[in-house]
């Protein structure tokens, strides 16, 4: 496995960075944060339709570009770096793998071309309460009636709940098995609200279903097969989220370096103090180690490893990246001094995103326990 980026990959990364530097500048992020939808529709249109970012990991048979998980990781890293406020993560990094892994060809044919073309956004609920796949904690119920199901229940935390066009929602069947359904946002009986989140760069919300009618063909998978495919899809999503976090951590370091180079005390740039240099160097160590873990995991994922291996790769990447992101965000506040505590400067945006996302798809402690169970057996 060669870890160098080829010229196509460097181009993907650099083009994304150039686009986001403008489209997701600090001012643009703050405007999106203040808006009702949480993102700029024009930026999303460019990104999804002209630049075809959502098409990256969608196979060509579904009108995508058919690239590997690695290219998604390169894009996600730049999204995190520029704090992109957009339905990109929930659509391309979470719901696309879910659709692909559940393997319902008809549903893939129905939805993936629209996602690839940038005309449909999607999200996925992972349990009744949180943002990790826990089939045991699915409270919604689905009852089959002739050629359709009726779904009722609630999901407390869903990314982009109120804006996604397509919602992938798990519900319990009468026999106790969990099934996953593709539900249109416009379905009668579906309502979504947006939470008042501290991390304004990414919206989450609650979804309620009251006797929502779903065609039988939109039941994507159920039972053990669903569990297996959701674990694989969530591993893919966790690797992409980890890439975002590496990008965010890098932004924290970069903005800190820019600030301390200008800031003078005692007649010299504070960047010349060894206490400061060492703290910045420590940030770089954690960022590069996390980046190595993420790139390694993404390259492994592209080789279609077994379920257990993929889960462990993702756990490693996500735990190291989450921890590095939070570490760099808190260091960035501290090293900015007083202004690091203000709303005006950006460190707090990363600090909030790092904490919120740190719990998505498994907190670092939970992920370490997954690894421990593999090494040492269950507790």
């Amino acid at each position: 496995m060669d870890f160098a980026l080829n010229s196509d990959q460097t181009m993907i990364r650099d083009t994304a960075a150039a686009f986001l530097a403008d489209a997701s500048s600090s001012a643009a992020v703050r405007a999106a944060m203040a808006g009702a939808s949480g993102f700029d529709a024009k930026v999303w249109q460019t990104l999804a339709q002209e630049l075809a970012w959502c098409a990256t990991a969608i196979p060509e048979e579904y009108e995508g570009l058919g690239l590997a998980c690695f290219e998604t990781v390169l894009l996600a890293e730049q999204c995190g770096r520029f704090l992109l406020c957009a339905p990109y993560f929930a659509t391309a990094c979470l719901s696309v793998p879910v659709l692909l892994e559940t393997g319902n060809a008809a549903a893939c044919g129905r939805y993936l071309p629209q996602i690839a073309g940038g005309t449909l956004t999607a999200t996925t609920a992972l349990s009744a309460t949180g943002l990790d796949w826990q089939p045991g904690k699915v409270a919604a119920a689905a009852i089959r009636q002739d050629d359709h199901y009726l779904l009722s229940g609630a999901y407390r935390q869903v990314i982009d709940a109120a804006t996604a066009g397509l919602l992938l929602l798990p519900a319990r069947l009468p026999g106790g098995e969990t099934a996953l359904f593709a539900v249109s946002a416009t379905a009668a009986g579906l309502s979504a609200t947006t939470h008042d989140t501290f991390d304004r760069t990414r919206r989450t919300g609650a979804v309620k279903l009251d006797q929502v009618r779903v065609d039988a063909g939109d039941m994507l998978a159920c039972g053990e097969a669903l569990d297996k495919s959701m674990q694989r899809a969530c591993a893919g999503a966790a690797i992409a989220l980890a890439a975002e976090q590496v990008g965010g951590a890098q932004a924290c370091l970069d903005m800190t370096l820019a600030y301390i180079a200008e800031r003078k005390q005692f007649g010299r740039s504070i960047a010349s103090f060894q206490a400061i240099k060492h703290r910045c160097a420590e940030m770089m160590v954690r960022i590069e180690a996390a980046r190595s873990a993420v790139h390694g995991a993404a390259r492994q994922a592209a080789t279609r490893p077994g379920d257990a291996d993929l889960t462990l790769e993702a756990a490693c990447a996500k735990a190291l990246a989450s921890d590095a992101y939070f570490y760099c965000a808190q260091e960035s506040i501290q090293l900015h001094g007083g202004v690091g505590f203000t709303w005006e400067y950006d460190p707090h945006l990363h600090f909030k995103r790092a904490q919120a996302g740190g719990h998505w798809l498994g907190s670092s402690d939970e992920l370490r326990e997954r690894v421990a169970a593999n090494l040492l057996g269950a507790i």
Partner: protein
Amino acid sequence: MSEDNAAFRAEISGWMQDNLQGEYQCLRHRGGPGDEDAHPELRKQWEQHLARARWTCVGWPEQYGGRNLTPAQQVIFHEEYARAGGPGRVGHLGETLIGPTLIALGSEEQKQRFLPGIVAGTQYWCQGYSEPNAGSDLGNVQTKARQDEAGGDWIVDGQKVWTSLAHESQWVFVLARCEPGSKGNKGLIFLLMPLDQPGIEVRPIKQLTGTSEFSEVFFDGARARNADVVGAPGAGWKIAMALLGFERGLSTLGQQAHFEHELQLVCAAAKANGAARNPMLRNRIAQAWMGLKAMRYNAMRMLATSPDGTVDGAADNAGLIAKYYWSNWHRDFGKLAADVLGFDADIASTEPALLRLQQVFFFSRADTIYAGTNEIQLNIIAERGLGMPKEARPAN
């Protein structure tokens, strides 16, 4: 991985399997850092055994006795060597530091005289860089070299310290000051000196481990032939730095295979004594596993060569953090190993597996000091990786 590489991997693992047994069986997983006093004579025989099968200096050009292996093949060699439990290499300073330096910068006569012995596993080297007042500040070396006008020999007076494996070596490469009154990295000379001579005394240092990998080396009118100066007198710093450039290396992945073995020992110990049921220890063991995985991928990024020649600066960043990351990982791991052993950590074990973990706990304290302390590493990362202001240096 290409079929060629897979076949090569199988060849090495097969050879190790067939050869690391019988009289050499007891060397498995021995002689690494912190365990370098294990079976030194037998390990030297093992070096010669390797040499007869041409498994020393595998990355060197064939004209100097190597196999001219590609970096990818060298990685495979080091990985399989370590995975099979190959013992710590007594000859590694010759093979990885002075040998490559002589190949790049030595005279033809030096190459002819020294390289064959290094390849054959019959000539062992140690490094005379650090001094009591020249550790992190290596440019402050005070050991003096003056030329004997009669015979042209260089006469050396002074002291080196932290010299690894000095008592197992025949030769030392020495950085000394040959221009009186010069300061810093100017006016230095790089000398090759036989240790077995009247003007040199080697005194092993008893470390906190109770063992002695490191020594002090005293020079009192010791002699080096003029033909054994590498590069020009006065330009020794250039040679010394070029040598350190060879230190970063392909053996990294082999080192990680050793770490992996140590982690397996910890997991086995934790399962055996019940520590595996302690949630805090489980968490730390998992963290160690993750750190090792990151280290492995980081090494692969560091060694990456782009298929189409694109330069990716990120590979340099991966290289910059490597030493700091592995040494701190290993030091934390040493503490974890001792915590997993619990009460038994303090009772010198007769079980090789447990003794190894006890050694790691103690020796890993050196990891963050030698080859650039943590503090120097962070300076280097900040200055080279992040472009931050350089530390003040005295004017030369």
